[in-house]
């Protein structure tokens, strides 16, 4: 490529003076940036791959009739091509991949959480109404009492499926379809099973599998009397007589229990509901508006725990930030002092808690804090039985201690860096002016430190506000508050409470959990905005 540059230099009629080293370097960089042949080829190959993937995705999506997603893929692929083939748009070239990933992994997730918060998605409201209906109909089938197993062969007559049934008692063969009840026919037998009859083609197992949907739907009336039930075959080789206990009236949209006569109708709550409020589950997903938010703050079962969990969450996050910061700062000052010997070794030791994954440390601490067998009680307190994790207040203290252990190395590192960036001249000047060390620290170093560290403190607050690992691994929110109606404990913070509402127990409520997470998001966002505004005033110090 350098020769090409030389050529260009000559054709442009530049002076024959040899370019300096710097000029040649600059030219090489410019050349690389403007895109050499290799780069262009690479670009084409990469875009080709992207387009190929997009095209394949389009075919699959169109095949699955996912029109909206297909449209999005098409538009994104077109934009990507446009950006990378255009000669300008340099910033866009760098930003596009990041933005695409941001949209897929962050924005979409946020929007979807937001959407779920306005639905009744959870146990019993998991799918669509059609799925609920078909599931209810399937589970309402009851085998006619004392009816035998009928060996069957699935048979076909011009596309219409029928069942060739052998009566296990008499050994006679019958045939019937969805519309025609069983009628006796002549058939050829293989052992006890009728396998073929005139006018019908017997299906082989592979054909049976290919027509699974039709066979699953096939119900052959046993006789003209509907109370005798209908024959259905779940596996294509044996049939059983079922009667249904539910009847679905599609036009009225109601389910009727044939045994009790109770009518269940769609009253807009996402499940078939009878007049006295009984629901048939499964129901289906519906949009419920602000119900989840209203429930979270007004339902006394949920609102009481929400209040004290919120208070503890704030206390936990604030105390954690403060304690880790001041311990980290103190240690940073100590180890920043030139008179301290062996500083490097100490610093490495300080970082150790930071190097171990936090969930692992929390588990180890949980073991050490065990009341009867833990290291702390057995060794440090000589066999005392201090209920570190089972007393409400001690458990809170334990959480704070462990989080201090986990968090101070980070603050130590941050403060160390910030302290070293404060020029020594300031201290010297202050000393010359006769200031005492504490005054220097309080009036000069700390404010300067805060300028650098304040945004990190806010980030640390936001992190601790949602510090799931420590709580979940150390106490799992316990000790449990046995007075609370939901399984919430004294050390639960908002995020672990959300986890319990959404993912534990047999009654999940994803809608409510999403509403909680939106509330949490709003709280964190508001606090961060206010705090960042305030730190601006700090920056004016500089």
């Amino acid at each position: 490529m350098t020769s090409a540059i030389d050529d260009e230099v000559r054709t442009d009629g530049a002076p024959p003076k040899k370019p300096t080293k710097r000029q040649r370097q600059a030219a090489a960089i410019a050349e690389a940036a403007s895109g050499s042949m290799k780069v262009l080829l690479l670009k084409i190959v990469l875009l080709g791959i992207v387009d190929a993937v997009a095209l394949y995705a389009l075919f699959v999506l169109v095949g699955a009739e996912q029109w909206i997603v297909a449209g999005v893929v098409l538009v994104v692929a077109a934009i990507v091509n446009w950006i990378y083939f255009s000669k300008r748009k340099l910033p866009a070239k760098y930003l596009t991949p990041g933005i695409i990933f941001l949209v897929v992994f962050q924005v979409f997730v946020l929007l979807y959480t937001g959407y779920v918060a306005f639905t009744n998605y959870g146990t019993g409201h998991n799918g669509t109404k059609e799925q609920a209906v078909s599931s209810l109909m399937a589970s309402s089938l009851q085998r006619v009492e004392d009816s035998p197993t009928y060996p069957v062969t699935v048979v076909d007559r011009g596309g219409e499926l029928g069942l060739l049934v052998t009566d296990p008692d008499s050994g006679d063969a019958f045939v019937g379809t969805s519309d025609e009840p069983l009628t006796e026919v002549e058939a050829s037998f293989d052992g006890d099973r009728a396998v073929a009859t005139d006018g019908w083609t017997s299906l082989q197992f592979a054909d049976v599998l290919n027509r699974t949907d039709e066979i699953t739907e096939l119900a052959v009336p046993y006789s003209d009397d509907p109370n005798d039930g209908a024959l259905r075959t779940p596996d294509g080789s044996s049939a059983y007589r079922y009667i249904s206990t539910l009847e679905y009236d599609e036009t009225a949209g109601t389910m009727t229990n044939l045994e009790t006569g109770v009518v269940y109708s769609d009253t807009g709550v996402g499940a078939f509901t009878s007049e006295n409020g009984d629901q048939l589950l499964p129901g289906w997903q519906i949009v419920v508006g602000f119900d989840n938010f209203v429930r979270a703050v007004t339902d006394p079962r949920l609102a009481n725990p929400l209040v004290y969990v919120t208070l503890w969450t704030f206390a936990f996050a604030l105390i954690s930030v403060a304690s880790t910061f001041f311990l980290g700062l103190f240690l940073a000052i100590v180890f920043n002092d030139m008179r301290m010997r062996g500083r490097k070794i100490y610093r490495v030791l300080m970082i150790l808690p930071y190097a171990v994954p936090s969930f692992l440390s929390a588990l180890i601490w949980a073991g050490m804090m065990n009341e009867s067998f833990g290291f702390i009680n057995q060794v440090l307190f000589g066999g005392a039985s201090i209920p570190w994790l089972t007393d409400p207040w001690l458990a809170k203290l334990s959480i704070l201690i462990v989080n201090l252990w986990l968090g101070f190395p980070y603050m130590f590192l941050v403060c160390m860096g910030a302290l070293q960036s404060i020029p020594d001249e300031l201290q010297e000047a202050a000393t010359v002016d006769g200031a005492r060390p504490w005054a220097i620290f309080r009036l000069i170093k700390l404010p300067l430190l805060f300028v650098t560290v304040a945004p990190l403190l806010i980030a640390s607050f936001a992190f601790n506000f949602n510090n799931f690992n420590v709580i979940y691994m150390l106490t799992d929110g316990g000790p449990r508050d046995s007075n609370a109606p939901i399984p919430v404990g004294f050390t639960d913070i908002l995020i672990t409470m959300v986890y319990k509402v959404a993912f534990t127990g047999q009654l999940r409520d994803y809608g409510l959990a999403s509403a909680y997470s939106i509330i949490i998001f709003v709280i964190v966002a508001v606090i961060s905005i206010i705090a960042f505004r305030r730190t601006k005033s700090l920056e004016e110090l500089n």
Partner: protein
Amino acid sequence: MRVNRKSLLAAGAVAIVTTLGLAGCAGGSGDSGDGSGDSSAASTLTVWVDTERVDALKGAAEAYTEKTGVKVDLVGKDNADIKDDFIQQVPTGKGPDIAMGAHDWLGELSTNGVVAPIELGDSAADYLKVAIDASTYEGTTYMLPYAVENIAVLRNADLIPEPAANFDDMIAKGKAAGLAQPFVVEQGAEGNPYHLYPFQTAFGAPVFGTNDQGYDPTDLQIGNAGGEQFAQWLSGQGKNGTGVFNTDIDGDIAKTAFLDGTAAFWLTGPWNVGAAVDAGINVAIDPVPSPTADPASPFAGVKGFFISAESKNKVAANDFLVNYLGTEDVQLELFKAGNVLPALSAAAETASADPIIAGFAAVGDQAVPMPAIPAMGAVWQYWGIAQAEIINGADPVATWQKLTADVQAAISK
């Protein structure tokens, strides 16, 4: 140079068109492949299996493919994820055709409408009764059972050669052998009612009564007189009493105590037998020693297979489960891999040649299926906490009455 670049661009354009064309072809052929996949999809069953049992099923899956031409695609998944993923994916139509799981998921799966009923037909009589009871929810069978699990007492036969006659005898035998804590059972800060249930049943206090549909959620039995007696007994064996039960003993601590020989009796399940045998302990399996004159019946957990309500291959799935996995050979094959008592009676008999399996099976005769009704969720929520409080010295009768009231309120909510 400029000319160069233009020609390059032209070459690039050609390259792109070709790439796109090729990609188009690839997409096209992929699509047609997909199309043919649709017709052959009827003969591919996707089965979600606990990662640890994939190998056990592999042979059975291959043999089934050979026999019928239906391909069985085993997907190993973490057992903890199967239920939630199944509930979430089935409504989107993307889940598996079959999933392996435990019977106490049934209430949740059925309430969410994600499982299809299974008809075992006459073969239902060939299974252990507890397995069939457990697979049935509100009168409908939803699961093909393959294994039955229950807890029993593991005894260190080198320390205590004879089985204990009852609970007090067990403690006395252990003390006589010089053990400070002869009996260990897994508890924890939030209690562990599953492991305490045998003792509770010995006092005649099941959780729910039963009717012809199975467990009856409207008939809460936990708070009866027997329940209060149990609470008093539990309190007497807790922190302020003999100290036999201790909420600080979790699964790991109990295991260590038994493996180190500092405890001679360990109330646990078959999943821990391997570790004890590997540690060189001469393990014997005993029934749970009862604190009363009545037998102590543990919960039975039944493992099995569910069919997705949205499966496109229901016929093949039913055939694979009922007519193939329900055969003695395959159940024995699964038993060899998992070492848990098979659900099919004939296979269970063969498997009981192993004294440890026979020991668990004998205890299992007393076992009752763990309730799978959703109301059980409300019970779990308070049950362990109340027991832990009683063990730690709370007033037994008052705590037990509060537990009953809480459960009742949560169920009728």
